[in-house]
Each structure stands twice: as structure tokens, then as C-alpha cells.
């Protein structure tokens, strides 16, 4: 039985090895690495854009239900009455955006305007190459610099956003781009600092190494996810907050605040280029979720040892879908922040909290052998809860009870 | 495999492009960009010499490059802040026009 489960678990790896083995006899030597790369890339390019397409429908349906509406439920198989509960919507949307007219403003910088969506999509897609999707399933395992690679590519998307906003020659676009850049630069620091705690404890920048550092089994059944520590729990939520801001998700979607600046930096994009921006945004969110899973939620590891028979890649995808649903839920709940609140939150709350979290993680690491478990837990939580309460109080004091001068 | 001279030539070329730009362009930001190019050329030299040295395990070149990247970031921040201040004061970022101290 165990062999069957293992075979299912390693099925993608086996398939790739088998295909490569067959190709070795047919293809010239120099083409084999290319084929190997293509075989690694194809599943990513197939799975994640499909996930994006399904997410757009699920998001609209979920938001509809949250607002007591039905959401899209019509588009099914064409020329029949089969509706598929609206899950044909993404195909219709795709066809629509493909066939729409591509409008470029007359005064736009045509070359930069054309390059911006490409320059945004490529780094986002490249970030997937270091994520461990399952046991032995890392397209590009960088043993020394995996996490740094991820953050370097994440940082380079800011420039594409600027390219899009500047080249459109539109005030809304430029404002949106400036907002997006300011936000991404500000939230990158808490993002990296909250990820750094895990690097400190795991002692490696390799993402597969970080997953393996969580494989240890506690109490006979529980895998030692970093989430199951005081600093990991707090760090995970700090990471999620910063990731939401990096991916321009509600409540941090000011760069695309349609009530103020139309669509932000991609106001002047239409048709397929707009679809690419949309795709890149969601793929960026998924990559961030995937990184959060790898760092804090044990990557492809199951939470309990006895659930290990479920294939590792199922665990990764399941956690990914769960995080996406969480983000949709948050989007349905929270209103958008104001620009000064956004910046204040990053610098006055997230940054100090991540620094304190780093300190707590250091203490946790140093007290592994010397201090009993309960003391470490209570101490860690106390060290994090008190600053949280103090910082949060300072943050809340500004949002006092609203006074209506004329209504009362 | 590329010999050391290849990297050194690229680095020299980059340095001279940066130098030419810094000497000829009027805009202060362009001068700063030229200086950044020259710094990067030096960095490439550090890395290349480290890689081709007889004792790469000492990592001295890497260290130097890392430090120089950090310093370049600080330099860019301060330099650009200065340029913005000059622009606010003189309403121009043209280095030839900022001549308040000229006798």
C-alpha cells in the first residue's frame, strides 16, 4: 500500500524521468537540458494560469454570496442549456479579452507601453521556479540563494509597474504607479524581515531546505511547522499582511482604487495586455501564498504524520487554495485603506512588529535546550503580545469615534 | 570558458561609458547614473578577480562587492536627495546652471 501512495506522490517526477529517458535515445545531447526545463515549466504554465482562471470565477461567486447575491452562474457550454454553475465564465472572459481592440494612447511611449506587461509577467512567472511544489518537485533548486532569488524577482516587478504607469501618459496611471511603488517598497521590508525569521531558524535560504526543516515530528503525530511556534504564528500573519500589500490585494489595493484613480497603473491598457496585467497580479498573489506555505505552513508536508499518504503536491495545492480563499474572504470583508494609513501601518506597526518577531525567534532558537517548552511558549507570546497591544493601541487611537457635525 | 580578460574588458568598457556620460551630460541625475555605472564596473572587477583568484575560498572579492553594493545604495539615496534639494532651490537639475558659488 505504501508503495502505491509513494508512486502517486512521485508520479510527476517519475513521468519526467521516464520521458527524459526515452528522449535521450532520440534527441541530441545539447537538447536534453532544454527538454528537461520544458518538462518542468509546462506543468507550472498549465496549472497556475488555470488556477487563476478558476479563481476569478470563484472570487466573483464568493464575493457575490458574501454580498447576498448569486454571482456569475450562467455561462456554461455554448449552444446548450448546461450552465456548469457559471464556471464557463473564465473562457468567455478570455475570449473577450483576446478579441478586444488593443488601444494604445496616441501620446503614449509605445515601446515602453508594450514592454511593461511582459516585464511584469516574466519575473512573476520566474518566481515559481524556486517554489517546492512537492517532494522532489522544485523546478530550480538553488541551495544557497532560493529565497533571495524570489525576493529579487519580486522587487523587480516594481519597475514594470512604473513602466506601465509612466508610459501611458495619463495622470491616473502615473498616480497609480507611484502609489503602487511606494506601497511595494514599504511593504517589502516587513515581508523580507518576517521571512527572515524562518531563514534564521532553518539556517538555509534554500526553499526545499526550509520545508525539510519542518519535517521533524513532534508528539508522535504533529509535523513541526513553523506556524506552531509563537514567532511563526505571528510571523505568518505579518507575512500575509505584507504579501497582501505586495500583491495589491484588498485592503491594500490603493494602486487600483477604482473610486479614485480608475484602474491605477493599467488604466490605459485594454484587451490582451490588460489580461496579462490581471494574470500577473493573480500569479504574484499565488506565488506569495506559495512562499508563505513553504515558509510557515510546512510546504508540501501534511500537518499530521498519519495524513502522509495523501500526495505531497496535493497538500501544497490544498494549502494554496485555502490561502486564496482566505484572501477572497478578506476582500469581501475589508474596506480599502487611505494612503497615509497604509504607509503608517507599514512603518509604525508592521516594521516594529517584524523586528520584535525577529528578536523573539532569536531567543527561541537560543533557548532550545536550556529552557522548558512551556516557558518558551509563554515568554514568546508575552514578548509578542505586549508590543502588539501597545502598537495596535497607538494605531487605533487615531481612528477615534467619528463626529458628525451636521447630522447630530 | 571565458578568460579573465573578457570580464575585465567588459568592466573597462562599462567604466568608460559611465565616465563619458558623467563628463558630458548636463543633468545631475545623468551624472549620477554615470557614476553608478562606474561603481558597477568596479564591482564586476571585484567579482571577476575573486573568481579567477588562486584562493576563491577566502571570499574577499565577494565581501568587497557586497559592501560596495550597500554603499552605492546609500550614495544613490543621498545623491538623489541632494539633486532634489538643488532642483527645489534653483528650479533646475542642470549642473552647468547651478553656479551660485561662482566668483
Amino acid at each position: 500500500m505504501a508503495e502505491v501512495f509513494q508512486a502517486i506522490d512521485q508520479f510527476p517526477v517519475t513521468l519526467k524521468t521516464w520521458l527524459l529517458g526515452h528522449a535521450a535515445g532520440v534527441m541530441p545531447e545539447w537538447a536534453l537540458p532544454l527538454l528537461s526545463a520544458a518538462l518542468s515549466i509546462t506543468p507550472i504554465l498549465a496549472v497556475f494560469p488555470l488556477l487563476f482562471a478558476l479563481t476569478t470565477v470563484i472570487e466573483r461567486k464568493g464575493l457575490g454570496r458574501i454580498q447576498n447575491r448569486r454571482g456569475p452562474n450562467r455561462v456554461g457550454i455554448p449552444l446548450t442549456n448546461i450552465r456548469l454553475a457559471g464556471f464557463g465564465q473564465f473562457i468567455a472572459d478570455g475570449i473577450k479579452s483576446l478579441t478586444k481592440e488593443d488601444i494604445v494612447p496616441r501620446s503614449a511611449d509605445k515601446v515602453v507601453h508594450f514592454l511593461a506587461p511582459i516585464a511584469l509577467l516574466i519575473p512573476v512567472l520566474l518566481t515559481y521556479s524556486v517554489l517546492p511544489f512537492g517532494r522532489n518537485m522544485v523546478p530550480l533548486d538553488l541551495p544557497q540563494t532560493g529565497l533571495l532569488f524570489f525576493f529579487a524577482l519580486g522587487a523587480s516587478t516594481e519597475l514594470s509597474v512604473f513602466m506601465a504607469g509612466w508610459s501611458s501618459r495619463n495622470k491616473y496611471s502615473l498616480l497609480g504607479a507611484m502609489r503602487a511603488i511606494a506601497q511595494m517598497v514599504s511593504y517589502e521590508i516587513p515581508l523580507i524581515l518576517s521571512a527572515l525569521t524562518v531563514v534564521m531558524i532553518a539556517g538555509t535560504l534554500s526553499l526545499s531546505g526550509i520545508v525539510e526543516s519542518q519535517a521533524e515530528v513532534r508528539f508522535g503525530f504533529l509535523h513541526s511547522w513553523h506556524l506552531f511556534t509563537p514567532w511563526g504564528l505571528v510571523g505568518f500573519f505579518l507575512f500575509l499582511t505584507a504579501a497582501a500589500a505586495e500583491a495589491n490585494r484588498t485592503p491594500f489595493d490603493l494602486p487600483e482604487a477604482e473610486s479614485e484613480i480608475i484602474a491605477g497603473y493599467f488604466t490605459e491598457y485594454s484587451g490582451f495586455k490588460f489580461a496579462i496585467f490581471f494574470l500577473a497580479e493573480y500569479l504574484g498573489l499565488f506565488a506569495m501564498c506559495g512562499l508563505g506555505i513553504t515558509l510557515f505552513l510546512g510546504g508540501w508536508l501534511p500537518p499530521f504524520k498519519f495524513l502522509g499518504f495523501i500526495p505531497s503536491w496535493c497538500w501544497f495545492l490544498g494549502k494554496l487554495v485555502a490561502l486564496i480563499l482566505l484572501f477572497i474572504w478578506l476582500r469581501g470583508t475589508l474596506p480599502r485603506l487611505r494612503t497615509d494609513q497604509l504607509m503608517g501601518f507599514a512603518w509604525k506597526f508592521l516594521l516594529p512588529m517584524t523586528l520584535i518577531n525577529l528578536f523573539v525567534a532569536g531567543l527561541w532558537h537560543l533557548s532550545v535546550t536550556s529552557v522548558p517548552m512551556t516557558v518558551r511558549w509563554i515568554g514568546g507570546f508575552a514578548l509578542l503580545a505586549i508590543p502588539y497591544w501597545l502598537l495596535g493601541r497607538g494605531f487605533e487611537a487615531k481612528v477615534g469615534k467619528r463626529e458628525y457635525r451636521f447630522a447630530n | 570558458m571565458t578568460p579573465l580578460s573578457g570580464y575585465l574588458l567588459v568592466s573597462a568598457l562599462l567604466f568608460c561609458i559611465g565616465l563619458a556620460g558623467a563628463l558630458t551630460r548636463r543633468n545631475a541625475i545623468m551624472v549620477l547614473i554615470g557614476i553608478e555605472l562606474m561603481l558597477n564596473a568596479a564591482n564586476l572587477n571585484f567579482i571577476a578577480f575573486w573568481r579567477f583568484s588562486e584562493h576563491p575560498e577566502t571570499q574577499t572579492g565577494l565581501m568587497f562587492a557586497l559592501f560596495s553594493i550597500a554603499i552605492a545604495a546609500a550614495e544613490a539615496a543621498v545623491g538623489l536627495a541632494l539633486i532634489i534639494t538643488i532642483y527645489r532651490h534653483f528650479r533646475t537639475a542642470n549642473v552647468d546652471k547651478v553656479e551660485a558659488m561662482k566668483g
Partner: protein
Amino acid sequence: MTLSFAILAGLTVGSAVAAMSLRNLVHCALGLVLTFAGLAGLYLQLNAEFVGFTQILVYVGAVAILIVFAILLTRGTEPANEPAAVSPWAGLPVAVLAFLAMAAAVLASPVGKRLAAPVPEVSVKTLGQKLMTDYVLPLEVLALLLTAAMLGAVIIAMKDKEDLQ
């Protein structure tokens, strides 16, 4: 000389020329970004992964953004009818002479013919340990410098606001 090196070197040098010669400042900044990316590629070729990715993180992610912001904040400084550069004859000969001198030195030196040693065993761990032991003093000085630079940049950029008040 390998093909990948030729492509990366061509990209780096070409984009550097573009960064220094284009009229539009934002185009120059974008060319500079391409140069930084090409340099990061060269670092990767030299097995300096950590420095290469740091280069992208710091230069593309931060310095380029700073430059772009500065360009937008000082917009309209170069009137269209005014040449973007002073007479090229002032700077170009100096640069060409400097290049010739350096190229001659590189080509004449026996060091230049040296081929790379086998890939050195570099781990980020040893890099970090070195930073915390041998290089701890430079690191501390650098930390101080970065703090001073941050404060300095904030104060310099804020000064005019106080004058207005």
C-alpha cells in the same frame, strides 16, 4: 568565450550606452536597469549567485526606483531645444583614452589569460560567518553609514518644507 557571456556582455554594454546617450531621462533609467540586470547575469556566470541576486534586489528594486522618482520629481529640467550634453568632444576623448589604457593593460597582463579555477565552494553560511567575524567592523561601519545616509536623505529632502513654513 562562450555564447552566454557574449550575449550578456553585449546586453550590458549596449544598454549602458543607451543609458548614457538617450535623450529621455526615463529611457536612460530603464537602460540602466537593463545594465544592472546584465551585470547580475555576469555575476551568476562567475558563480557569485548571492551577489548577483543582491544586485537585482538592491539595484533594480531600490536604486533604479530612487532614480526614477528623482527624475519625475525634477521633471522639465531639460528644455527640448537645449542639447542634452555639453559638446561631446570634452568628455569622449578622455573616456576613450582611459579605455585604451585599461584595455592595453588588461591585454598585456598575463593575469588576463588566466582561466577560472574549479567552482569554489561558497555557501551563504560561510559568507555570513565571515561577516560576523572577520568583517564585523566594516559591517558595523556600514550599518552606521546606512543609518546616517537615511537620516541625511530625509533631512536634506525635507529642508525646504521648513523654509516654506
